[in-house]
């Protein structure tokens, strides 16, 4: 936790510039139309939305992973489940605690990360990449736009602190 605290304190000096989720990449071959956008929730989830596929990949944040400690069990929704933004879609459990996962966006669960059944520790090793939780086919793409940018998310951690 000490390192997280220091991190949070460092970012205090950085003014929050961006108000909206950041565009983090463009797929090759479809310039200007295909955007990959990443948004954060104040409940410590992220969703990375690819507008080419219409899929959003849901993860917990690195901060959440560090706070939880060693993850030992991950409960994920069933494929095909229809979820609304804010619904409980599963839980991440460490030795000390269980923490609900809320759907950051509305949609239908298209895929879940099967690797987590055997390797829940992927969430600690690589929370925002290989430790992804599920992919959602978004029904309200505008919801992504309303999520927090990385800077805003960091600021929200700070205000929690």
């Amino acid at each position, binding site marked *: *936790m000490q390192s997280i605290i220091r991190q949070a304190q460092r970012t205090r000096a950085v003014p929050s510039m961006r108000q909206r989720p950041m565009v983090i990449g463009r797929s090759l071959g479809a310039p200007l139309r295909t955007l990959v956008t990443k948004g954060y929730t104040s409940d410590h989830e992220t969703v990375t939305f690819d507008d080419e596929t219409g899929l959003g990949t849901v993860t917990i944040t690195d901060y959440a992973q560090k706070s939880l400690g060693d993850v*030992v069990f991950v409960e994920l929704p069933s494929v095909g489940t229809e979820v609304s933004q804010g619904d409980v879609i599963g839980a991440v459990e460490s030795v000390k605690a269980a923490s609900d996962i809320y759907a950051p966006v509305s949609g239908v669960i298209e895929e879940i990360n099967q690797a987590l059944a055997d390797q829940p520790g992927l969430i600690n090793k690589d929370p925002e990449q290989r430790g992804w939780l599920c992919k959602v086919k978004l029904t309200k793409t505008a919801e992504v736009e309303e999520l927090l940018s990385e800077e805003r998310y960091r600021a929200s951690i700070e205000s929690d602190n």
Partner: protein
Amino acid sequence: MNGLTNVSRRSTQLLRRSLHTSAALRDAAPAGQTLRRTGLYDLHKENGATMVGFAGFDMPLKYEGSTPVESHHHVRKEAGLFDVGHMVQSMFRGPTAAQFLEHLTPSSLATGLKPYQSTLSVLLNPTGGIIDDTVITKHTESSFYVVTNAGRRDVDLPWFEQKLKEWNTTELAKKEGGVEMEVMEDWGLVALQGPKAAAHLQSLTSHDLTTIPFGRSAFISVSSSSSSSAADTHLLHVARGGYTGEDGFEISLPPSTTTLLTQLLLSSSPTVQLAGLAARDSLRLEAGMCLYGNDLDETTSPVEAGLSWVIGKERRSEGAGFVGESEILRQLKEGVERRRVGVVSEGAPARQGAKLVDLKTEEEIGTITSGIPSPTLGKNVAMGYINARTHEGLHRKGSEVGVVVRGKMRKGVVTPMPFVKPNYFRG
């Protein structure tokens, strides 16, 4: 990720604190709720501890450089040092001290304990409920060292005082002598735990530690410098035992030398690492030990809690004279409805508050009071209470039961405790 479900009260508190820990929060408790500090507070901070409020004290949850699970494994394989200085250490002295403590507990202390022998015991209320669990060590027939829980301080100390006042007006006390209680305020208490604890402590003392088996204690001489000057020689009370299931010692440290001697216990050895409350909780659960507030409370009797063994043999007949006696004797004779059991379950960990149900009828049969994914065993271990009367036999070992986590029933098996085999030194 914010909503915490099915988590023990304390774990919730811990995670909430760990998610919201900041320098400001840690150093300043909310108005009117100033957290107390043990003598080792500065040492914890210097070692990168994440501090949390626990039982009214600002205590280390974990330390920089290792996760709670790594720390847990370190204690099982090497040795860990826990600050348990928040616990209340008291001395009871006087010609009738044994009888007084036998009035407040169902333990056999006058004849059941030899000098420098300890026992787990319980303070009982008039209806046989557990006011607190405690470890009582006899030094002489008229001198006892008693350790009680920090979280019960505000209940235990007035209880002791009230009962002492009453005791000292009895004919027996007037005739043979009364009892005095001395709370050892600001004394340190550290628990050195793990298979390498004894070898490490032996390197610091000439006292032969093989003469102190599990459940015994002694004053041992420890030198804090290579000179043999009297000022550097410390006579310390060590009790062999602890709260992890491992071999180890609980070492009482005078206020003025608590930090110095703790540093000594930590120095010159990578074997001994500081360990916090997080590891302490997972270790005690694997060892099947109760946490007051979770697994024990004033509505629970030692018979229900599976602690009948603390009730001395000669104290099981009428006129034994302990508080709560009639109810306890009735329960021993007629049996009890609720019984504490161990449960090993599949899938999502069972934690405090999870319902236990009949697998077939899904009818509620009990509740989990503590549970954790066991770092040592790699499966979920929990303890809770099952109604043994209405659900005949389901409390017996091997019974298959359901555990409801997040609305789904998971399979569990009633399993004898401890879950992890104890590693005590029995001489």
